[in-house]
């Protein structure tokens, strides 16, 4: 099974109306080449799940500026004015989620949990519409899994079998999102031979990787 494909082939798996998770934290660890190719292809009505919407000219923000999203699920949109503008003018639905809760919801989808209980958001607008569950006198919100059709992941290294290694703070949501989508596409700075990564050095096991593309070194 050859998982290494071209960026164009990879992007062909993304269609109008799909739900797409994209890694990165303020554009650090975002697969920019996949995002650029997605902008170029111009698929529409995407639901984008990400920590934030980056900047107007960097990271996930480029998709928002190009009006390819109908909905964004994120913890923060403040660094991209266009997201706020589209939201205020009713062009874009934005669902704001506490960052730690978003991470757990994605992990829950990837790891087969029906949901998790968290205190985060209790007593705030975040609890609206959610089931509350009391355990030992403490009130928690039941937060449900969030999964996607496709996850776009940024790696430092990937071996040809699909084992992934991330660099420093470019991890953020990437390892979690890699577990929670039907198709996982990894943009790697370096593609290495199988066996070059020691089993203990792998951060995302090969079984999660559907495809990988060569992002080239910067």
């Amino acid at each position: 099974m050859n998982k290494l494909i071209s960026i164009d082939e990879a992007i062909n798996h993304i269609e109008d109306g799909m739900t797409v998770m994209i890694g990165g934290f303020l554009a650090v660890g975002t697969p920019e080449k996949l995002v650029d190719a997605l902008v170029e292809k111009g698929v529409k009505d995407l639901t984008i799940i990400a920590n934030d919407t980056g900047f107007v000219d960097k990271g996930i923000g480029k998709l928002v500026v190009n009006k390819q999203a109908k909905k964004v699920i994120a913890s923060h949109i403040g660094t991209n004015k266009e997201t706020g503008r589209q939201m205020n003018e009713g062009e874009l639905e934005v669902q704001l989620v506490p960052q730690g809760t978003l991470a757990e919801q994605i992990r829950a989808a990837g790891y087969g949990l029906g949901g998790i209980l968290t205190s985060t958001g209790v007593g705030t607008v975040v609890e609206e519409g959610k089931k509350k569950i009391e355990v030992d006198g403490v009130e928690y919100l039941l937060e449900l899994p969030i999964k996607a059709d496709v996850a776009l992941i940024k790696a430092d290294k990937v071996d040809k079998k699909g084992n992934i290694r991330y660099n420093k703070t470019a991890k953020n949501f990437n390892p979690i999102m890699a577990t929670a989508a039907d198709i996982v596409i990894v943009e790697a700075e370096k593609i290495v031979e199988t066996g070059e990564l020691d089993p203990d050095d792998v951060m995302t096991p090969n079984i999660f990787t559907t495809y990988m593309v060569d992002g080239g070194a910067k």
Partner: protein
Amino acid sequence: MDKNQIKELIAKRVAKELHDGDVVNLGIGLPTLVANFIPDEIDVTFQSENGFVGLGPSPKEGEEDKDVSNAGGQYVTIKKGGATFDSGVSFGIIRGGHVDATVLGALQVDGEGNLANWMIPGKMVPGMGGAMDLVVGAKKVIVAMTHTAKGSPKILKECSLPLTAAGQVNLIITEMGVIEVTDKGLVLKELGPEVTVEDVKAATEAELIISDDLKTMEV
């Protein structure tokens, strides 16, 4: 005091709340300055919610690593003995009570320890980012802010803006004083330089209990 002196005063006073061995998360803006005032003899580990412990100083120009930034997106460094991890682990650390103190700014705080710092409806809706998790998860929540905004009190009887979390604030440090959130209400423990108790009361909408042991803020 000018604006910078005020910020420095607050940051210096916050630094005195931190102990050897503490794991601390500093919010964006004023709280970031706290790192500059940790005494050499104590070892404080800074946690950055985008995914590491061991936050170090800014890199020299030209030595930035594109994959090493803080939660504000600025290039930073990771100290020797630091460790990186994904957002799931990072917020596990935060939610699980492994962060001893979080220091953050506020739009409003009230006598119940409620905090509002993430949105002004119809005006500014940046999102809560990691603030809600930090305020709920950290063992001690320190609000570090100027006492008023354009002359209006920020310490209120009741927050009017959407809350970040209910009843989680432990300590409020401003240029006018140090205020502890207790079961009985807000207790003024220390008085800022150049102000009187009456000044603080006038600039605070919430009821203030004046500590029997009121001290002058030492920084």
